[in-house]
C-alpha cells in the first residue's frame, strides 16, 4: 500500500465495566507509541453519540484512514463502529475492533495482568488494521416468502401478521391440527377469557387466508441455503384422507366399525377415547379427519369392512396415501416449535401414575372444559366430586433434581385453576407454592382476587410427598399432602381428594435436532438461544432465522404473542429492504498462484469452487461462497485469499498478541 497509514485508537471505559479492571489510560498511552498511530484516546462510552462523533472529528482533523476501537464484543457493536467509520468518510472495513470487555475485564481479576492482555490485544489490532483494504459491502436479495415452523399461538400470530402484510407464508405444523397447547386450555389468566374464544377465530383466519399455505401433519425434513434464500424440504405425513375432497362432515367417524372410541385421545390428554379415524377436536384446523395407522384395523389386518370408505360420499378416504416431500424456497424462517410439559412421573414422590386422582394441570384444563371429556364436570375416579383439592406448584421447576429454571407461568395458571376448580366443585382449594410470581400486567391484581376467594388457601412450602396412608380418621382413604407451612414454621398433613401437579415447561424432545437442522444454538437448559437477550431477543446467530414463543424459553400467552409479532416484524424488515448485507468475507483465487491441484474444490461445502479448464485454475463463485475460509487454509500454494481474514492480517494479529 502506497498511501501513508494513519491509525486512530479508541479505548472505551464502558463506565467501570472495562475501566474498573483495565488501566485504560496506560493502554491508550502504549497504543500511541505504535507505528502508524496518529491519535490514541480513552473515552467513557465509545458507543454513545459523542463517542462516535469523536471518531468522525478525528478522521477529519488528523485525516485518519484506519480505526481501532477497543471496547466490547464485535458481535455486539462492530456494525455501530463500522458505520461511524463510514460516516467519517473512511471505508467501514478499514476498521478493527478489540474485545476488552467480554474477553478481558469481565473475566479477569488481576488488574495488572488484565491490562497487559489489553495492551497486547490492542497492539495486535493496530498491526492488523494497517493491512486492511477497502471492501465493497456485499448484498444478497431476499426471497419474500416466509417459513413458520409450529402452529401454536406463536406460529399462528406470526403467520397472520406476515400474511396480512401481503407475504406468502408456509405454516408447518407436525400435529393434524394447529392450535398447540393453547387450544387445550379452558380459560386464560388473568382475564379468564375463554381460550377457544380468542384462539379459534385466529385459527379459522389462518385456514381462510389466501397468503397462508397451511401444512399440518407435516415436518421440516431438511434445510440448506442461507438468509434470503433457504431451500427447505417438508415431509408431509399421510393422513389417509384426501385434503381436497374431505369436507369434515364426520360421517366416516360415525361409520367406523368401532362403535365407541377405544384409544387414548391425545387432545384430551388421554382422559377420553377416540376411534382410529378421528377429528382432533371440533374446531380443528384444517377441518379434516385423520386415520391413525397404529390402531386402524385395515392397516393392522387388511381385513376391515371399511365402513368409513362406504360412508364417505366424496371418496376422500385413501388407504394408499404415501408420505410426500415438498420442496420450497423461502427468504426467512420463524421457529415457533413450542415446549413440552414436564413429565410428572419423573417425581414419584407425588404419585402421578401410581395414585389415582393425581392429575397434571393440562389434564385439569381438559377436565374443567365444557367441551372436555366430562363436559366440564370435575369428578374423581370413583365418580364423586372432590371436597378438597391440593394444587402443587413448581413441579419440575426450580429444582436441581429436574429443571433448575422457573417456568414463569405455573403460579398464574395455578391461580386460574384454583379459581375454576372452586367454581366447578365448591371444594376447599390448597395452593402449595414456594414464591408467588405474578409479574405481568394485571397478575398481582388476579392474585389479590384469589386471596379474596373463600375456601382458597395459600401455603408457602414445597410439598415433600403425596401419600395414601392415614395418620388420622379424616385422612382415611384420601390423598395426604405432607408439607412444611414455612410461614407457620411447622409441618402439616393435608388430606385432599384430588391433587393437581402444576408442571413446568421444558424444551421439546426434538429441540436438539431442530437446532442442528436450522444451524442455530441452544442455551444450557436446551431452549433456543437468542442472539442477544436485550438487543436481539428474537434473532438467532443465523441471519434470517427468528424465534417466537416458548421454544426460546418459558413464556405466557401475552409475551408469546408479543414475541411472535416481533419475529414477524424482523422478518418483514428484511423482506421489505429487499436485500441483506453480508460480511464481505468471501474468498477468491489468485490465478497466477493457483497450481490447479483441485484440493479446494472437494473441500467447499457449498460447491462454490469450480475448475476452469482453459486457464487450468480453480474459480470461486462468490455468490455461493459463505466465507468459512476452509479452502484458504487448505490451499497448498496459498493461492486463495479470504477478504477480512487474509493470511497476512491474521499473522500480524498473532505477532501482535505475542510481542
Amino acid at each position: 500500500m502506497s498511501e501513508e497509514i494513519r491509525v486512530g485508537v479508541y479505548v472505551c471505559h464502558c463506565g467501570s465495566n472495562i475501566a474498573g479492571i483495565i488501566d485504560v489510560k496506560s493502554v491508550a498511552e502504549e497504543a500511541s507509541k505504535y507505528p502508524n498511530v496518529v491519535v490514541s484516546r480513552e473515552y467513557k462510552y465509545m458507543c454513545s453519540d459523542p463517542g462516535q462523533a469523536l471518531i468522525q472529528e478525528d478522521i477529519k482533523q488528523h485525516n485518519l484512514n484506519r480505526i481501532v476501537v477497543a471496547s466490547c464484543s464485535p458481535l455486539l457493536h462492530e456494525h455501530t463502529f463500522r458505520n461511524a467509520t463510514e460516516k467519517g468518510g473512511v471505508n467501514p472495513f478499514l476498521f478493527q475492533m478489540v474485545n476488552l470487555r467480554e474477553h478481558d475485564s469481565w473475566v479477569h481479576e488481576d488488574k495488572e495482568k488484565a491490562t497487559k492482555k489489553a495492551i497486547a490485544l490492542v497492539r495486535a489490532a493496530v498491526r492488523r488494521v494497517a493491512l486492511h483494504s477497502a471492501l465493497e459491502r456485499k448484498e444478497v436479495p431476499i426471497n419474500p416468502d416466509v417459513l413458520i415452523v409450529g402452529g401454536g399461538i406463536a406460529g399462528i400470530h406470526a403467520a397472520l401478521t406476515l400474511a396480512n402484510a401481503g407475504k406468502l407464508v408456509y405454516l408447518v405444523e407436525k400435529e393434524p391440527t394447529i392450535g398447540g397447547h393453547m387450544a387445550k386450555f379452558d380459560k386464560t389468566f388473568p382475564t379468564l377469557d375463554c381460550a377457544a374464544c380468542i384462539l379459534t377465530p385466529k385459527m379459522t383466519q389462518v385456514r381462510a387466508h389466501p397468503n397462508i399455505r397451511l401444512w399440518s401433519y407435516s415436518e421440516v425434513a431438511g434445510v440448506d441455503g442461507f438468509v434470503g434464500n433457504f431451500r427447505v424440504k417438508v415431509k408431509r405425513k399421510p393422513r389417509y384422507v384426501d385434503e381436497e375432497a374431505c369436507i369434515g362432515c364426520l360421517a366416516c367417524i360415525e361409520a367406523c366399525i368401532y362403535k365407541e372410541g377405544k384409544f387414548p385421545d391425545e387432545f384430551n390428554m388421554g382422559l377420553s377415547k377416540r376411534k382410529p379415524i378421528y377429528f382432533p377436536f371440533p374446531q380443528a384446523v384444517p377441518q379434516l379427519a385423520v386415520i391413525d395407522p397404529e390402531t386402524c384395523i385395515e392397516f393392522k389386518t387388511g381385513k376391515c369392512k371399511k365402513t368409513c370408505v362406504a360412508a364417505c360420499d366424496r371418496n376422500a378416504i385413501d388407504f394408499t396415501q404415501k408420505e410426500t416431500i415438498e420442496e420450497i424456497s423461502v427468504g426467512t424462517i420463524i421457529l415457533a416449535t413450542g415446549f413440552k410439559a414436564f413429565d410428572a412421573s419423573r417425581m414419584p414422590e407425588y404419585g402421578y401414575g401410581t395414585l389415582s386422582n393425581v392429575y397434571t394441570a393440562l389434564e385439569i384444563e381438559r377436565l374443567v372444559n365444557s367441551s372436555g371429556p366430562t363436559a366440564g364436570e370435575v369428578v374423581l375416579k370413583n365418580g364423586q366430586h372432590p371436597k378438597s383439592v391440593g394444587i402443587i406448584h413448581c413441579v419440575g421447576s426450580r429444582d436441581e433434581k429436574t429443571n433448575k429454571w422457573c417456568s414463569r407461568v405455573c403460579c398464574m395458571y395455578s391461580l386460574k385453576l384454583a379459581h375454576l376448580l372452586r367454581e366447578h366443585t365448591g371444594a376447599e382449594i390448597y395452593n402449595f407454592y414456594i414464591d408467588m410470581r405474578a409479574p405481568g400486567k394485571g397478575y398481582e391484581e388476579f392474585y389479590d382476587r384469589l386471596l379474596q376467594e373463600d375456601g382458597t388457601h395459600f401455603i408457602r412450602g414445597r410439598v415433600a410427598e403425596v401419600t395414601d396412608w392415614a395418620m388420622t380418621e379424616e385422612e382415611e382413604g384420601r390423598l395426604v399432602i405432607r408439607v412444611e407451612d414455612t410461614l407457620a414454621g411447622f409441618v402439616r398433613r393435608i388430606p385432599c381428594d384430588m391433587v393437581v401437579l402444576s408442571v413446568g415447561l421444558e424444551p421439546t424432545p426434538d429441540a436438539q435436532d431442530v437446532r442442528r437442522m436450522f444451524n442455530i444454538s441452544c442455551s444450557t437448559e436446551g431452549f433456543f438461544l437468542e442472539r442477544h437477550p436485550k438487543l436481539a431477543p428474537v434473532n438467532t446467530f443465523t441471519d434470517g432465522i427468528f424465534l417466537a414463543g416458548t421454544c426460546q424459553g418459558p413464556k405466557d400467552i401475552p409475551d408469546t404473542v408479543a414475541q411472535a409479532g416481533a419475529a414477524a416484524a424482523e422478518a418483514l424488515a428484511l423482506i421489505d429492504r429487499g436485500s441483506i448485507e453480508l460480511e464481505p468475507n468471501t474468498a477468491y483465487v489468485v490465478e497466477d498462484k493457483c497450481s490447479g491441484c483441485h484440493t479446494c474444490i472437494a473441500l467447499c461445502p457449498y460447491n462454490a469452487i469450480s475448475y476452469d479448464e482453459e486457464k487450468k485454475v480453480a474459480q470461486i463463485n462468490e455468490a455461493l461462497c459463505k466465507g468459512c475460509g476452509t479452502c484458504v487454509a487448505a490451499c497448498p500454494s496459498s493461492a486463495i485469499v479470504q477478504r477480512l481474514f487474509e493470511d497476512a492480517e491474521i499473522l500480524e494479529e498473532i505477532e501482535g498478541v505475542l510481542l
Partner: protein
Amino acid sequence: MTYKHMIKYEAECDPKFAEWVTEIVGGEKIRQCIQCGICSATCPLSLYMDYPPRKLIHLAKEGFKNEVLRSNTIWLCASCYSCTVECSKQIKVTDIMYALKRRAIEEGVFAKGIPIPVLAKEFYKMVRSEGRTTESWLVVIMLLKTNILKIFGMTTLGLNLLRTGRFSFLKDSIKRKDELKSLLDSLEEAPS
C-alpha cells in the same frame, strides 16, 4: 408469665460462623437455599425440632451460632438423608447437621437434656480403644451417664436381649488395637 425477648441485634450473630458453614464438607451450596421447606417436610423428625431444618439452615447462613448450636434439631437428626435427597438445590443437609454436631461438641454447647452427644462421645471412645462397638455396653453406659431412671423402662429390653443371646457383657475388640490408635492419632491435628 414471662415474656421472651424476641428481637435480634446484629451484634448477636457471628459472621465468622456463617462463613464457616459455607466451608464445611457439604456446606458449599448452603447459600443457594430458597427456603422451600422440603427438607422439613420430608424429615420424619422435624415435628420434634425446635427449629425445622429449613429454619436451621437459614439461621446458620445468617450466623446465629448460638441458636444453631443449642438447637435440639441437630441432635434429633437420625441421618435418614431424606432432606439431602429431596433438597431443591442439592444442599447436603445431613452433612451440615453432622458438621454442626461436631462444632457443638467441640464448643461444648448442647441443647439441654439431650443424651445424644454423650452417646456419640462414648461411642467414639469405645471405637478408639476397642476398634469395635458393643451396642449393649453403649446402651448401659449411656443410661448410667444420662438418665438413670430411664434404665427401668429399658430393663425388659435388656432381659429380652439376654434371653435371645443378643446381649453380651463381653466387649468385642480388634486384634491390632495399637495400629488403629496410631492411625487415628496421626490425624489428630488435622482439622475436622
